[in-house]
C-alpha cells in the first residue's frame, strides 16, 4: 500500500515530471482546439520524440496531451461551432448558441469545471475499480456492441432539431458514407465505383471538419457585414449553486463516459453523444431548450468525454487492451520503453499503474488551471470581424483535414462535404446525425456480421443468445423502450394507461 502511495505521488514530488505534465496539458488544450490536429496524432509523434527518454517523463507528457486534448476540443466547438475533436460534437450543439448570445465565457467556464469533475470521476473509477470494470467490459459480445450501436443510432432523434424525417435521412447518409471503401472484414470493395481514392474509405475527421467548419464559414458569409457579438466575461468560474444543481446529472453522464470509454472499440466521441442524449431525456425542464444553449447540453458531453479518459486506461492497465485509439498508442509506447503491457503489468509493475493514476490526477488539475485562464484571449477570436474570421476558419479546416493522414484527398473530401453541408443546413437538414452515422457505421456493420456469423447465420440462435444473456437482454430492452418512446404510440399508450386526456406538447 505504501509503495502504491509513493508511486502515486511520484509525479507530484518530481518537478521535472510536474513540468512535463503541465507542458503536455497546455499543448493538449491547443492541439485539441484545432480541428484535425488530434490527440492520437500528437501522441504518436511523441513516441518517436521521447524514444530516448525514461519511461516516466515520456508517459507524463503523453498523459498531459491526452487529458488536455480531450478538453480542448470544446473550445472551438463553443466559440466557432467547429468541434476541435470528434468528442466535442455534442458540445457545439448547445455551446455555440451560448456564444452567440455573448455567454461564451460562462460556457467555457462550465465546460472546464465539468470536464474536471468528469475527469476526476473517471480517474477515481480507474484507481478503485479497474479490475472489476475491465471484467465487465470484456463481457460485451459482438451482439452487445451491435445493440450499443443501435442505441447510438436512436440518438438521431435527439440530434435533429426540427424534422425527424430529415434527421433520419442525415443519419442514413452518414452510415452509407461510413461504409465506403474496402470492407474491413473481407476487404471487398463497397461504394468505391472502382476509383482508387475511394478504396481507403472517407476519413470521418474530414467529413466532420467539412460539415462543421466549412459549412459554418459559408453560412457566416451571409452576415459578413454584421458586427461581431460582444462577449461578456464577467463570470467565468460557475457558482457553487450551478455546480451543485448539475451534480446529479454529471454523475450519471460520467458513469456513461467511464463505461463507454472502458469498452474496447468505443471512445469519448460515442460517450459524449450518448451522454447528451441521456441529459436531454432526464432533464425535465431546462432553463433553455436543448439546442438553444441549455447548460445541461454542455455538462453532459463534457463530463462524459473526460470521464472516458480514465475509462480508456482501465482495460489498458489491467489487460493490455486499448480502450480507445490513444491508449492503443500508449500501449506501443510502454512496449518500446521495455515494459510488457498485458494482464501481468499490474502484478509485475504495480508502481506503473499508480504512477499513471497520479499523472492523470495532475493533468486534470492542470487542465482546470489552463482552462480557466486565458479565456479572455480565446473569446477575442469570436469578436474578430467576420472578414478575418471566415478565411481563418477555412485555413484551419484545410490544414486540419490535410494533417489527418497527410493526404490531399482528405482535403477534397472535406471541401466537398463542406459545400454539401452548407446546402443541408440551408434546407433544414441537421448535420449531427451525419457524423453520428459515420461514427457508428463500422461499429454496427462489423458487429452485426460478427454476431450473426458466430451463430452460424441463424436468426433463431441469435435471438436466443440475446434473451439468455442478461447484458444483451438489458441492452435489447433499452433499444425497444427508447425506440417506442420516440414514436406517437408512446404518447397514445401513456394517455390510455394513465387516463390523461392531454398529451404534453413536445
Amino acid at each position, binding site marked *: 500500500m505504501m509503495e502504491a502511495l509513493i508511486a502515486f505521488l511520484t509525479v507530484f514530488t518530481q518537478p521535472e515530471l510536474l513540468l512535463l505534465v503541465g507542458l503536455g496539458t497546455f499543448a493538449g488544450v491547443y492541439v485539441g482546439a484545432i480541428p484535425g490536429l488530434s490527440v492520437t496524432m500528437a501522441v*504518436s509523434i511523441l513516441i518517436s520524440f521521447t524514444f530516448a527518454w525514461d519511461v516516466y517523463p515520456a508517459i507524463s507528457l503523453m498523459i498531459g496531451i491526452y487529458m488536455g486534448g480531450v478538453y480542448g476540443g470544446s473550445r472551438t466547438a463553443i466559440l466557432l461551432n467547429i468541434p476541435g475533436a470528434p468528442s466535442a460534437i455534442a458540445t457545439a450543439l448547445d455551446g455555440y448558441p451560448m456564444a452567440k448570445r455573448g455567454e461564451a465565457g460562462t460556457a467555457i467556464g462550465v465546460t472546464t469545471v465539468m470536464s474536471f469533475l468528469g475527469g476526476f470521476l473517471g480517474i477515481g473509477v480507474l484507481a478503485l475499480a479497474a479490475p472489476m470494470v475491465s471484467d465487465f467490459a470484456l463481457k460485451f459480445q459482438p451482439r452487445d456492441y451491435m445493440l450499443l450501436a443501435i442505441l447510438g443510432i436512436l440518438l438521431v432523434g435527439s440530434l435533429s432539431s426540427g424534422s425527424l424525417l430529415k434527421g433520419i435521412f442525415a443519419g442514413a447518409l452518414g452510415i452509407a458514407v461510413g461504409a465506403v471503401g474496402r470492407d474491413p*472484414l473481407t476487404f471487398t470493395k463497397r461504394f468505391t465505383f472502382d476509383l482508387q481514392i475511394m478504396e481507403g474509405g472517407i476519413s470521418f475527421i474530414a467529413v466532420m471538419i467539412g460539415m462543421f467548419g466549412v459549412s459554418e464559414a459559408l453560412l457566416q458569409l451571409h452576415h459578413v457585414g454584421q458586427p461581431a457579438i460582444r462577449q461578456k466575461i464577467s463570470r467565468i468560474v460557475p457558482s457553487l449553486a450551478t455546480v451543485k444543481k448539475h451534480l446529479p446529472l454529471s454523475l450519471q453522464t460520467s458513469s456513461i463516459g467511464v463505461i463507454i470509454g472502458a469498452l474496447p472499440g468505443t471512445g469519448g466521441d460515442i460517450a459524449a453523444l450518448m451522454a447528451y442524449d441521456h441529459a436531454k431525456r432526464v432533464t425535465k425542464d431546462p432553463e433553455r431548450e436543448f439546442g438553444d444553449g441549455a447548460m445541461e447540453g454542455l455538462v453532459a458531453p463534457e463530463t462524459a468525454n473526460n470521464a472516458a479518459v480514465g475509462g480508456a486506461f482501465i*482495460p489498458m492497465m489491467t489487460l493490455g*487492451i486499448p480502450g480507445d485509439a490513444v491508449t492503443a498508442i500508449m500501449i506501443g509506447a510502454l512496449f518500446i520503453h521495455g515494459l510488457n503491457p498485458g494482464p501481468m503489468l499490474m502484478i509485475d509493475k504495480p508502481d506503473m499503474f499508480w504512477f499513471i493514476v497520479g499523472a492523470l490526477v495532475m493533468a486534470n488539475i492542470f487542465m482546470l488551471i489552463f482552462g480557466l485562464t486565458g479565456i479572455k484571449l480565446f473569446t477575442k477570436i469570436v469578436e474578430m470581424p467576420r472578414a478575418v474570421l471566415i478565411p481563418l476558419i477555412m485555413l484551419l479546416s484545410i490544414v486540419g483535414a490535410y494533417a489527418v493522414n497527410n493526404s490531399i484527398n482528405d482535403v477534397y473530401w472535406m471541401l466537398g462535404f463542406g459545400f454539401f453541408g452548407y446546402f443541408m443546413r440551408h434546407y433544414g437538414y441537421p448535420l449531427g446525425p451525419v457524423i453520428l452515422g459515420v461514427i457508428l457505421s463500422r461499429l454496427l456493420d462489423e458487429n452485426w456480421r460478427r454476431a450473426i456469423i458466430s451463430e452460424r447465420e441463424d436468426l433463431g440462435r441469435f435471438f436466443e443468445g440475446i434473451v439468455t444473456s442478461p447484458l444483451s437482454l438489458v441492452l435489447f430492452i433499452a433499444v425497444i423502450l427508447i425506440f417506442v418512446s420516440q414514436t406517437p404510440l408512446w404518447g397514445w399508450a401513456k394517455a390510455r394507461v394513465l387516463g390523461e386526456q392531454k398529451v404534453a406538447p413536445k
Partner: protein
Amino acid sequence: MKHLILGAVSALVLGAGAAIASDYPTKEIQGIIQWGAGGSTDTVMRSVTPHAEKVLGGTVVMQNMTGAVGAIALNHVAGSAADGYTLLMGAENPMLYKIMGLGDKDYGEFEPISILARGTPVLVAGPDAPFDDYAGMMDYIKANPGELRMGATGPGGLPSVITAMINTVEGELDVIAVPYDGDGPALTALQGGAIDVMPAVLGAAIEGIRAGKMKPLAIFDVAPNAKLPDAPIVTSFNAGYETFLPWGPFFGVFTPKGTPADVSAKLGDAYGQAVQNPEFLELMDNRGFTVMGISGDEAQAFLSKWQQGTAWLLHDAGLTKTSPEEFGIARPGE
C-alpha cells in the same frame, strides 16, 4: 562578385557531391509505416529506427500511413523517387496483394533493405475452452461439428494462412470463422468468450498466456519456442506440418527498385547493426520475435521463398482471387 561566383561554384560542387552515396544521407529520410500507431509493425519500426539513425548519422522521420490493408502506403512509396530518402516500413502481407486481388503492386517493386525479424504463430484458446491442446481441439471439432468459433482477420492475414495450413494437413475443418479487424481485437474477444480459438503471432498473445488468460494449444514451428518451452509444437501432433513450417509473419524495411546500390548497402548495414542493439534484442525477445537482420540477396531469397510457399498454400485452399501462376510465382520446389 568574384567571391560570390566562387561561392556559387563551390556550392554547386557540394550540391553535386550530395548525390554521391558516401555523403548519404544529406537530408531527412521519410519512413512510411504501413500500419497504424501502436500496432506491432509500428512498435518494431519505432524501436529499431533510432539505433539505425545513429549508424547512418541522419534522421528518419516516421509516419503512419494506413488504409486499404497497407496498400496506400505501399503505392505511395512505390511512386516516390528511388533515392533512398523514402523508406517503406511494412510487414509480410503485401506479398499476397496480387493473388488476393487487393492491389497490383507488391514488394517486387521494391528492394529489401533489411528483413528485421519474424514472428512465430501460435494457436491459442480461451481460458474456459473445454480442451487443453491441439489434439483435444481436433477431437472437440469432430464431436461438435460447426460449433467451434475460430477468429480470423480477413483474407491473407496470419489466421487465414494458419487455417489453410490446418485444412490442408488435417482435411477441411467444420468450424465458424469470425472475422475481426486485427489480432488485437480478436484476442480481446477470445478473452471475453466471443470466440474459442485464435491463430495469432506469439508476440501478441504472450502476455495473455503468461497471465493464464489464454491457453497455448500448439506452437506452429518445428522446434519448441524458448519463450514458451512447455507449449507443444504442432509437428508433435501431426508431422504433416513439416512441409509448411517454419512459417511466420515478418517485418522489413524497403526502398523502391532502382535505388543506388551504395545507398541500399548503407541503409542495409545501418539496419543490420541496429537489430543487434542489445535493447532492441531484449525487446524482440520479450515479445517472442526472432531477430533476422538480413539484407541484399539473402533477403530477396527469403522473400521469394516466403511468397511461393504462402501463395500456393492459400491458392490450394481455394482462398485466392487469382492463381499465383498469373504473376509468375512458381510452385515451391519447381
